[in-house]
């Protein structure tokens, strides 16, 4: 078992919250108070954290390898946009509708694709996000086509908290939603369901042999994950008041996978570290060398995959283990 995070999960695990797990929230609070110019970027990071977290649940814990998770992120984004434009700009209602819609899409598509494994499954996930991208591109009356949905009207939260031009409300809104979803994922991962989900990843033949409804469990995890991805997409639409084609397609699916791998798969907090480092590095490199920033990201990824299989957190784990040994 790699590191303390994995060891805390299971029937002998200690699910109690450790102080280090509060670090992301302390950091978020610090950004809010001391670096207000970074709030819009911070909101975007939070949204990608939620997206990566949703992916970690099925990919890291469930072992369901997908390159189509942007389908649900994008679907949530568009549903939130269309809902706000056509019905009401109430953000909480829109968020709930998008989460449910993305979950239903996940349930329907998962019911088909989770009957397959490996490469076939990977191809099908690719197909789903490609199909949705084409629909969003062609169904211009609803989606706005290549122009996307502009100036999506968003009312104040609970009729009280207006989205301000500095992005303060948006940041806090994202922070609260992401924290709630983090708690949900953390609870699930530590639960008997979470251990059984890990069991299907480790050995689905044995899972069948101990009488587990493997397909149903995987579908349940997939539905929850897609709903969370949709929630992240909706947050993006609501905080930027825009939804465009870039929320769908293989490119975003690949990018979120890269972020998760960068941070560390199957650790919950890899989904925090990955997007944080990736987006900040991208932002920095794009300012320094606008032509070559992708090169920097590429080199970073090569280094991580070659020398740190557990991502940045895996690297930290090993460093701490070495420190402990040195002290002993």
């Amino acid at each position, binding site marked *: 078992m790699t590191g303390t995070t994995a060891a805390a999960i299971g029937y002998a*695990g200690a699910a109690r919250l450790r102080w280090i797990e509060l670090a992301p929230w302390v950091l978020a609070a610090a950004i809010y108070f001391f670096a207000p110019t970074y709030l819009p970027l911070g909101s975007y990071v939070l949204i990608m954290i939620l997206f990566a977290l949703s992916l970690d649940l099925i990919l890291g814990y469930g072992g369901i390898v997908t390159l189509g998770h942007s389908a649900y992120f994008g679907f949530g984004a568009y549903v939130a946009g269309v809902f706000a434009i056509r019905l009401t700009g109430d953000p909480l209602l829109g968020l709930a509708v998008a989460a449910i819609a993305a979950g239903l899409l996940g349930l329907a598509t998962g019911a088909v694709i989770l009957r397959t494994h490996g490469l076939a499954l990977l191809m099908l996930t690719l197909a789903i996000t490609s199909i949705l991208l084409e629909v969003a591109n062609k169904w211009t009356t609803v989606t706005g086509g290549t122009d996307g949905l502009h100036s999506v009207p968003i009312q104040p939260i609970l009729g009280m908290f207006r989205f301000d031009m500095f992005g303060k409300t948006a940041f806090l809104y994202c922070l609260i939603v992401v924290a709630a979803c983090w708690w949900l994922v953390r609870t699930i991962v530590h639960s008997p369901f979470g251990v059984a989900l890990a069991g299907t990843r480790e050995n689905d033949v044995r899972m069948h042999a101990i009488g587990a409804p493997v397909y149903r469990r995987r579908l349940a995890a997939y539905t929850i994950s897609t709903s969370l991805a949709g929630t992240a997409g909706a947050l993006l639409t609501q905080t930027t008041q825009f939804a465009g084609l870039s929320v769908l397609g293989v490119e975003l699916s690949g990018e979120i996978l890269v972020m998760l791998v960068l941070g560390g798969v199957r650790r919950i907090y890899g989904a925090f570290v990955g997007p944080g480092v990736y987006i900040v590095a991208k932002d920095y490199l794009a300012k320094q060398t606008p032509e070559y920033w992708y090169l920097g990201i590429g080199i970073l990824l090569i280094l991580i995959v070659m020398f740190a299989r557990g991502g940045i957190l895996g690297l930290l784990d090993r460093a701490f283990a070495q420190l402990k040994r040195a002290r002993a």
Partner: protein
Amino acid sequence: MSRFALETRGLHKTFGGLTVAANINFGLEPGARRALIGPNGAGKTTFVNMLTGRLAPSSGRILLGGEDVTGLAQEARVKRGLGRTFQINTLFRDMSVLDNVALGVAERLGIAGRMWRAASAYREVRDEAMELLARLGLADDAGVRVLDLPYGKQRLVEILIALGLKPKVLLLDEPAAGVPSLESERILEVLDALPSDIAILIIEHDMDVVFRFAKRITVLVQGEVLCEGTPTEIAADRRVHEVYLGERPHG
């Protein structure tokens, strides 16, 4: 009501033109200690896979405790008391020894699908898994990743996972496969100590294991039951000797 814990009637399986199970009529009494032997390619594994539901028979019926389970999925058969182990270790590789056993216990107790409390809050699962581990002297290894165990102990975990399901019928697929003879003695002791009310079918190449453990033996050759009898009868049977002639049982 069948007098058998597990029964097959006219079980038949063909792959294209190849018949791998031919009209197998087989019955396992409650508490039985039965061995299934036969040369390589006799269809033993196919037979087991049909019993557990991994493979659908071309025709025939499978009855578990008198109930027809032919059309039921694997998980439904497990719920009705059919447990199995695997010839090749089929463990939850990256998980602790405790969790390997606890997963099955949790499935049996019907709490494996719960999401809102931590697994460690379900004491009954952990306690039962620990009890099983202690019974086989593995209590000290509970926290070890199962892949880090010596191979012989991994074979014991293989059996423990099945025992956690409290099966009425247990299929043991070469439980001592790959274990050095010194350690296989330990596995035999474990097999001898299994609860007497479980009906056990052991698929085994090692004749020492077969003759020590089984009260009755069924011989399968080319998908057909050649004969069935006590170990002494089977040892004296000329047809069995013919089948094994030139291909002495290895193990």
